[in-house]
């Protein structure tokens, strides 16, 4: 223990300072793991090329394809049907860039391909105490392991490729204490939607969040990833959780996890990372989840959420810009203020994304689909987060359950979360989605999104409308 109790964030920050910050210059922070994908990297490689630079640490860089790839099965000859030539060219560009610079590339068809925030942890690349960056705002997912993980822009992707470093001002810290014991049918997704509702859409801007409390300790690593994943939806670039036995148990035996003597040493080091008793945060909030019900969003940003049993809020009760913001969201969503959200008809269900596409998410959804049928009016897609998740789900027979219910079982990718690959809503359609953003047009131009847990999404697929998954007959 150090003299002044320190937070997990402070320990990681200090141990990665190449140069401390001053009034005139930001800190130079060293990056342990740089994850790249096809959408936010090509222009960065372009900068390297035009300046004649090399990738400084190819061995600390890992690439996969996820955003713009098709999730329909390959043709007999193994080729894929891309949404268009640009998507195909983007994927080929990444592969060529990786080959040129000696970067590990987990391409489509490889057993290790998947959504970047699913494969990092799966491969054991994400480890406690690391700094992890990626040109993707959901990089905070890796914070579940006690890593400082955050999204960066493409210029910064170039900085990390060329120097393995980033220029950073030290963020503020906020402790999000989550107390209570969840009731059955309520999970990690409901917790994070409740937290974002409490903090507000921009309430975490400028902060690194640390999630603490019994409800967080009780979550599996997959649940913790779901929570950390959506930190950005409150404006926080990073969200992390102090590592514990649950973390170590997940990491043991992963391909890139240390082994033998190195494993024992790593555990000793990781155990010292947790935030110490009495450590100071710049802000603190408390959320009690013992009475939490399944949550879902009704509006056009992830903080606009309610419990499934509640009525859609009324703009009339608000004033000024708050009123306008809510009225505009309800207008886009085509929803009536004051009406119960339960019973709202839906057209599409999407189970997937870096938020909820891991094996435990699919098991939850399968519980609901088992022995039931997707409503005739609903198109349901189940998109595993990675090849490894897909393989595991198939070994457990989950794919049969989904297909027997009438849902589509897809190949791994981001799919309808970002709707770049052809998987998208038509204008006016309603979707229940286990993804992370319900922005206007996010899942297809004119499409309308309700964000929810895998359980709630699966129950909606069966019912053809929004229902409390705990009450499904």
């Amino acid at each position, binding site marked *: 223990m150090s003299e002044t109790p320190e937070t997990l964030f402070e320990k990681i920050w200090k141990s990665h300072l190449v140069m401390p910050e001053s009034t005139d210059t930001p800190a*130079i922070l060293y990056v342990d793991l740089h994850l790249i994908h096809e959408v936010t990297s*090509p222009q960065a490689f372009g900068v390297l090329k035009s300046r004649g630079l090399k990738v400084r640490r190819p061995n600390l860089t890992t690439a996969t394809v996820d955003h*713009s790839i098709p999730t329909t099965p390959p043709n007999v000859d193994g080729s894929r049907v891309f949404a268009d030539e640009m998507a195909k060219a983007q994927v080929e560009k990444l592969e060529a860039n990786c080959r040129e610079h000696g970067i590990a590339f987990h391409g489509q068809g490889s057993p290790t391909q998947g959504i970047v925030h699913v494969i990092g942890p799966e491969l054991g690349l994400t480890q406690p105490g690391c700094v992890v960056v990626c040109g993707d705002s959901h990089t905070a997912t890796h914070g579940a392991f006690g890593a400082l993980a955050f999204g960066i822009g*493409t210029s910064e992707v170039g*900085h990390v490729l060329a120097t393995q470093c980033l220029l950073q001002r030290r963020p503020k810290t906020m402790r999000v204490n989550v107390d209570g014991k969840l009731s059955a049918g309520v999970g990690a997704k409901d917790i994070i939607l409740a937290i974002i509702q409490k903090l507000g859409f921009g309430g975490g801007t400028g902060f690194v969040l640390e999630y603490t409390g019994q409800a967080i300790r009780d979550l599996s690593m997959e649940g913790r990833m779901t929570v950390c994943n959506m930190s950005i939806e409150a404006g926080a670039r990073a969200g992390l959780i102090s590592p514990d036995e649950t973390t170590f148990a997940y990491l043991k035996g992963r391909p890139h996890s240390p082994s033998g003597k190195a494993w024992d040493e790593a555990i000793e080091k990781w155990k010292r990372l947790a935030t110490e008793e009495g450590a100071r945060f710049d802000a603190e909030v408390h959320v009690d989840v013992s009475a939490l019900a399944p949550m879902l969003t009704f509006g056009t940003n992830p903080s606009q959420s309610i419990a499934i049993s509640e009525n859609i809020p009324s703009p009339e009760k608000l004033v000024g810009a708050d009123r306008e913001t809510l009225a505009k969201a309800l207008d886009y969503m085509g929803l009536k203020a004051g009406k119960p959200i339960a019973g709202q008809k839906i057209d599409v269900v999407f189970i997937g994304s870096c938020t909820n596409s891991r094996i435990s998410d699919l098991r939850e959804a399968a519980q609901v689909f088992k022995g039931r049928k997707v409503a005739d009016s609903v198109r349901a897609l189940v998109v595993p987060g990675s090849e490894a998740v897909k393989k595991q789900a198939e070994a457990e027979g989950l794919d049969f359950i989904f297909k027997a219910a009438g849902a589509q079982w897809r190949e791994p990718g981001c799919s309808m979360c970002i709707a770049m690959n052809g998987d998208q809503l038509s204008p006016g359609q309603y979707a229940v989605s286990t993804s992370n953003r319900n*922005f206007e047009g996010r899942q297809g131009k004119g499409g309308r999104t309700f964000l929810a847990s895998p359980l709630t999404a699966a129950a909606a697929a069966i019912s053809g409308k929004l229902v409390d998954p705990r009450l499904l007959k």
Partner: protein
Amino acid sequence: MNHIQSRTVVLPQRNIDTDQIIPARFLKVTDKVGLGKNVFCDWRYLPDGKPNPEFILNQAAAADAHILVAGDNFGCGSSREHAPWALVDFGFKAIVSTSIADIFRNNALKNGLLPIVVSPEIHAELLGAPGANLEIRLDEQVLIFPSGKRVSFEIDRFSRHCLMNGVDELGFLLGCEPHISAFEARRA
């Protein structure tokens, strides 16, 4: 960059996210050229592809305007640098709001797009006067209203230095190579 003088364009909506600034379907590019034609695409064009005459960026008032005054929490959402690329390509040089999302702000600063945060009072004044002729002086860190009123704003000193002197951040980092090597040696 030091001096910007221009009329303002006002988009008063709160929480304008990066999916609105540039929808994901335009992110399949491998360069940054020409993204401005799709900035705010889903607001700017009607279903038949024609410009929506109701939308401010399609009106004469927006021609040659370099300053965008936007509602709270501008640029929230994804890390796509395509958002500032598109805004800059359209012609914007500064964004003024009460709060600007972290990743967007970082990305903007690397592309010569100045993010300026003002108080709710000043913001209300700007929202209420679309088309106001504003002057921005980065050296003095002030906004100058047509009335002559001067309002100061904060900006990180390093970012200001980079913008004013055209310093490239990658060049700066590359110049720190001995420190990076020393750090790697310490950790090995």
